[in-house]
C-alpha cells in the first residue's frame, strides 16, 4: 500500500494525530518558555544559582526520553500530561541557557551606562537587556521546539497520541509504509517549526 493511498483513506485520522502532535509540542514549549525565560533572567541576577540550575537542566537532558516517560507514569499516569511534562523538562535547558547567555552577552558598558544614569534593574531588563537578547532567546526556543517535535513521537508509547501512533503501529506490524506515514509528517512539522521560528529570530535579532 502506497503512502498516498494510505493518507487518502485515513485523512481524518492523520489530521487528528497531527493536531495532537502540535498540541503536545505547543503546550509543552509554551510552558517551558513561561518557566525557562524568567529562570534564565534570574540566573543573570543570582550568580550563585547559575551552576546548580544549569547542571540540573543538563542532567534532565541526558535522561533517555523513553525512560523519562517511564519515570513520570507513576506520577501523572498514562496519557498526554505525562508526555507534556517530559517535553517541558527537555525544552527547559535550551531556553534557560539561551536566556542566560543572551543577557550575559550584552555589552557590559551598555549596562554600566544605563545603571550609571539611574535606570532601575527592571527598566534595564525591559528596555535594553531583553531586546538585545531576544534573538538568542528565540534561538533557544527554536531548538527546544524542534527537539520537542521529535521527542513527542515517543509520546504515543504512553498513550499521549500524536504522529508517533503510526510509527509505533508500523514498528509493531513491520509495516514500512505505516512508519513513514508517521515519520514524514513529523519531520515536515519539525522543518516547518524551524523555518517559522528562524524567520521570527531574524526579525527579532537586533540589526547591527
Amino acid at each position, binding site marked *: 500500500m502506497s503512502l498516498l493511498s494510505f493518507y487518502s483513506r485515513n485523512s481524518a485520522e492523520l489530521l487528528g494525530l497531527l493536531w495532537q502532535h502540535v498540541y503536545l509540542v505547543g503546550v509543552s514549549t509554551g510552558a517551558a518558555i513561561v518557566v525557562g525565560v524568567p529562570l534564565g533572567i534570574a540566573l543573570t541576577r543570582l550568580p550563585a544559582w547559575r551552576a546548580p540550575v544549569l547542571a540540573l537542566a543538563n542532567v534532565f537532558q541526558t535522561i533517555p526520553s523513553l525512560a523519562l516517560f517511564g519515570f513520570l507514569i507513576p506520577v501523572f499516569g498514562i496519557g498526554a500530561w505525562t508526555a507534556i511534562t517530559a517535553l517541558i523538562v527537555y525544552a527547559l535547558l535550551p531556553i534557560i541557557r539561551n536566556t542566560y547567555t543572551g543577557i550575559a552577552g550584552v*555589552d557590559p*558598558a*551598555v*549596562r*554600566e*551606562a*544605563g*545603571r*550609571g*544614569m*539611574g*535606570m532601575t534593574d527592571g*527598566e534595564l531588563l525591559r*528596555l*535594553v537587556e531583553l*531586546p*538585545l537578547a531576544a534573538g538568542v532567546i528565540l534561538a533557544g526556543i527554536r531548538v527546544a521546539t524542534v527537539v520537542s517535535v521529535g521527542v513527542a513521537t515517543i509520546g504515543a508509547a504512553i498513550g499521549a497520541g500524536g504522529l508517533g501512533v503510526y510509527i509505533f503501529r508500523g514498528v509493531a506490524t513491520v509495516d514500512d509504509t505505516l512508519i513513514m506515514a508517521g515519520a514524514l509528517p513529523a519531520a515536515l512539522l519539525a522543518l516547518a517549526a524551524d523555518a517559522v521560528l528562524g524567520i521570527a529570530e531574524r526579525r527579532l535579532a*537586533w540589526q*547591527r
Partner: protein
Amino acid sequence: MTAAVEVRGLAYALPGDGRTLVQNVSFTVGLGETLVLLGRSGSGKTTTLKLINRLLEPTAGEVLVAGERTAALGYVIQEVGLFPHFTVAQNVGLVPRLERWPADRIAARVGELLALVGLDPSAFLARYPHQLSGGQRQRVGVARALAADPPLLLLDEPFGALDPITRVELQREFRGLERRLGKGMVFVTHDVREGLLLGTRIGLMQQGRLVFLGTPEEFRGSTEPEAVAFMSAADPGPMARG
C-alpha cells in the same frame, strides 16, 4: 556657591578580601565647577566615581548630590555604552522618556542637545550607534548624559579611546561646554594635560587617598611627590626634546 555634590569621608573596601580601594575621600564640587580626579591606574578614581553614582555602595562616608541622597546623574564612560538597538534620538531621549516627559518636549530636548554637542540633528537623529565614528559616539554619549538636565555630570576618561586629533577637538569643545552648562562635573583621567586643561580644580589620588586637592595653578607648583611625578611626566624634559 551651591554644591552639586558633596562627598564626605568616602571609603570602599572589596567585599571579598576586604582590600581597601578608596579611603577617607572628601570633597565638594560646586555648580559650574569641574573637579578632575587625576591618578595612576588603580588609584581609586573610577571607584570614587562609581561610589558617587551608586554603582558601588560605600563602606563608609556619604554622597550628597544637590543636597539629596538619590538624584539622577549624567554619566559618561570611555566605552560610551550607547544602546545599540536605539537610534541616536532614542539614546539621547531615554532618561527623559523614563521620567515620562511628553513626546514633544523630549524631541525638542534631543534636538537642542545634539546641536549643543556639535551634531546636526537632521543628519544624526535617525542613525544607529554603529553608523557613527568614535568621536560622534562620544558626543552622543555626552548629550545622553545631559538629557534630563542633571545637576552633576560624571565622566570616566570619556575621551580616552579616541584618536589624538579627535580627542583634542573634543577636549576643546568640552571646555566651552563646561562654561555654558554651569553644572558640577567630576572628570576622571590619568592624562595630566587633559586634567589641567579641563579642571577648575585637581584632585590627585594615590592608593585610594586624595593626596592633593587644589587649583591647576596650585597643582603645577605643588611639592607633593605624586603631583611632581605627574608634572614631570607631562613635561618630556630636555632628553626627549632632543
